[in-house]
């Protein structure tokens, strides 16, 4: 019996990828003054598309099947171990010490990432709350 559907699984994946992206962006901010440091980023849309494609059997990033009742949930560290597309950010302009971190863009990306993480978490929580309400026979 499938209690937790594909949407919930996709939301879980989205949360994992957002967390990885937050790590990468934090690393960019920490290295804003390191000479010759090239900033990195995770292409979120492409990553999620690859994960979705794998779930539908089109190859790409491998993915555990959506959880069924009684199965264990996804393993976040397993996601990091795979080849997530962590790419170098193309340099905006010249830099005198080789460091190409654009601090303002990075902070904006970090804020957007946190916001989307919150939205996905809210969606997942709400779906689970609906399920919980139904399961508990309408008594909260």
């Amino acid at each position, binding site marked *: 019996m499938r209690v937790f559907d594909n949407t919930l699984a996709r939301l879980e994946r989205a949360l994992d990828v957002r967390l990885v992206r937050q790590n990468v962006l934090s690393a960019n901010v920490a290295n804003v*003054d390191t000479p010759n440091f090239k900033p990195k980023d995770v292409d979120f849309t492409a990553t999620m598309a690859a994960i979705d494609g794998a779930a539908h059997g089109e190859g790409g990033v491998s993915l555990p099947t959506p959880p069924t009742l009684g199965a264990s949930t996804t393993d976040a560290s397993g996601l990091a171990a795979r080849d997530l597309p962590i790419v170098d950010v193309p340099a905006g302009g010249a830099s005198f010490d080789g460091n190409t971190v654009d601090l303002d863009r990075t902070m904006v990306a970090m804020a957007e990432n946190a916001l989307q993480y919150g939205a996905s978490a809210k969606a997942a929580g709400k779906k689970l709350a609906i399920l919980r309400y139904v399961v508990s026979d309408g008594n909260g």
Partner: protein
Amino acid sequence: MDFLTALHVSGSGLSAERTRVNLASSNLANAETTRGPNGKAYQRLDPVFQSIHMGAQDEAPTVGQSPLGVQVSQIVADQSPGKMVYSPGHPDADPNGFVTFPNVNPVSEIVNLLSASRAFEANATAVETLKTMAARGLDISK
């Protein structure tokens, strides 16, 4: 990667920038020190930042996918020559009457200070953002 790793990374950024602030303050304070710890004029100090792979607090980092934190790998003394001022009566004057003053330019030290404090604030904002994210994640099970 998880929340703790990101916090560790931002923490490394915070402490590296704090070191930079400390060194800039030290340079400014010693802008006129003609007799430093080694008897010669004070030489301004620079931190050298280096990226390092970071795992969570007590784990060894896995090189492939772990995020890059920062550390001050060494503190180098700036070897450029200081200003020579002709002042024969000065206790630190050399046989020709010249006194070597430190190679500190207060303006560029203050610029370093401002840049370091901006980076410090950016790292602090990163920590706040991470805390907000963690709170939202915990709200899933509210």
